């Protein structure tokens, strides 16, 4: 704690912290209030005298009903869920195997491959999206979920691999050696001994991968065109705006509901998420 007078504690700690938290969380509050605010209040200019920004006295579920009933939002949610889960599964599978190989096996070019995988993490999607769109079209994957399920691992695997390498390195090699002496093949030693011990790491990587998939935008924007194939971020952006008119109520409802799955996963696994984040940064 900050030593000294109580006022010092308030000035140097509570107030700054409070301001930070307020600034960071206010937009979400705004999202929530807008979602339940009726249209007539919503479209009241801020100069008008009865502008009540921070609360509403007539909350309504109309926007949510519109979103769920009149748009393809449910489909988008399902699409996004399916794509995120599939991409996460693929990435974890590849990441676990690759992370194990790079951190516990000795073979030629190990260093080079590790660096190579690390570098691909730093090739952003915005660099590849134009030629990749072409390739997706050539593989006849355009406008299908597979376009995303197969391309998302390109930025998920390097991250998962890197994260899991850190966890694997921390497992003493004697465990594996003992298993091999006990009669296990290298493969069995990996599956029965190393993987169970690395479960926290695998969980962290999986949750991180899920959140990153859900957040992806440009590939989904470019590779998908039919409204029923879209993911939540793309659907909300493209279908809730007609020309120049923004349907703010349903838009905010979409933003709010679209964030819920990720927020839920996050809230159950906060420790794992933070561990994943900090593990990746500490290398």
């Amino acid at each position, binding site marked *: 704690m900050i030593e000294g007078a109580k006022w010092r504690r308030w000035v140097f700690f509570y107030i700054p912290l409070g301001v930070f938290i307020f600034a960071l969380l206010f937009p979400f509050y705004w999202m929530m209030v807008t979602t339940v605010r009726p249209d007539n209040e919503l479209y009241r200019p801020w100069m008008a005298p009865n502008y009540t920004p921070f609360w509403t006295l007539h909350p309504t579920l109309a926007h949510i009903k519109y979103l769920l009933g009149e748009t393809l939002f449910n489909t988008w949610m399902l699409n996004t869920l399916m794509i995120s889960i599939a991409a996460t599964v693929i990435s974890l599978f590849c990441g676990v195997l690759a992370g194990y190989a790079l951190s516990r096996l000795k073979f030629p070019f190990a260093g080079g491959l590790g660096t190579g995988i690390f570098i691909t993490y730093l090739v952003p999607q915005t660099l590849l999206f134009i030629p990749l769109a072409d390739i997706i079209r050539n593989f006849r994957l355009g406008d299908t979920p597979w376009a995303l399920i197969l391309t998302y691992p390109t930025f998920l695997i390097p991250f998962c691999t890197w994260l899991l390498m850190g966890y694997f390195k921390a497992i*003493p090699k*004697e*465990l594996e*050696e*003992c*298993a*091999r*002496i*006990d*009669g*296990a*093949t290298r493969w*069995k030693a990996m599956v*029965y*001994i190393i993987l*169970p*011990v690395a479960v926290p790491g695998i969980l962290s990587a999986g949750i991180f991968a899920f959140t990153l998939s859900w957040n992806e935008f440009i590939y989904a924007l470019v590779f998908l065109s039919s409204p029923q194939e879209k993911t939540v971020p793309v659907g909300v952006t493209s279908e809730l705006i007609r020309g120049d008119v923004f349907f703010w109520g349903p838009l905010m409802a979409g933003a709010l509901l679209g964030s819920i799955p990720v927020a839920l996963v996050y809230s159950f696994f906060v420790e794992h998420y933070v561990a994943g984040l900090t593990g990746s940064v500490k290398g």
Partner: protein
Amino acid sequence: MAQVLIRSLNKTFDGVHAVKDVNLEIRDKEFVVLVGPSGCGKTTTLRMVAGLESISSGQVLIGDTVVNNLPPMDRDIAMVFQNYALYPHMSVYDNMAFGLKMRKLDRVEIGKRVQQAADILGMQDYLKRKPRQLSGGQRQRVALGRAIVRHPQVFLFDEPLSNLDAKLRVQMRVELKKLHSRLSTTAIYVTHDQVEAMTLGDRVVVMKDGMVQQVGEPLELYNAPINRFVAGFIGSPGMNFATVRMSGAKDGLRADNAGLRIDVPAEIGLRLSPYAGRDVTMGIRPEDVRVANGSDPAGLCFDAVVEVVEKLGSEILLDLQVGDQTMVAAVDPTVRAKRGDKLRFALRPDRLHFFDTTSQAAI
């Protein structure tokens, strides 16, 4: 017949020649200890027998099979590691059963063997616990139990007692010895602690810089070390060494330096005669140095100033200044001495060792 034959074994890592031409014959049911300072190659040799390191050149035979290219799982060996290497996500029972499951033994047989091992080691109470709930000594037992249930042809031990506290270490040493006589299985044990080597081994192999220095029964190494390294390594406190000049006297040879004038007994004198006029290294163990009484011949005595007195209860260690060198004497607890005293000490003549100063070999 589970003998282990090591023939001309070599290992090179990144240009470092860690194990140099090691030859060993370990007989069936024998308990052999590999001992030496860190980096002497003992652990690498053990790991090559286990199959955890590849063999650069040479052969390892277990039974009568060359195992060079067999993976560890097919060599029918069991190993106990320094930090136990217990599977943290499995209970004690499952830890012990793992190897048997890998060999596809049926549940009933597995249960029998685990119970047997648990009985021998007194572990019945914690079969269901996880490793993190056990103390260091208990974990070591589990590691042992895991090795025992496998009924292997050879046991391998990699410094298993180093992580235990001193008292526990002494206790476990005794238990290991009892265990070995009960199980009668060939065992290779690696340690840096010469006390463990002396107490546990049927035969002891002293290694240094990747090479075998001497192989023999413990007392053989103690009484007849073949070089200065083995002489200094075995025994605690270590042997005293002094560089002396040999000179011929009318009734035999004499060894001299600034503080000592020792008459060399006739039996050894013969071997030392070629060294007349040259320097040799003389060695005498602290326990063979005692306070002189009137009847000791002058040619076997020397004067010294007491620097430090260490009272252990069972004996007293005196750090002595003899001329321009230091020596340690381990004397009877009844001796009264204090710092600064000048006393006369006598050596046991039959316990003198001499070493060539260049080759370090015993003369």
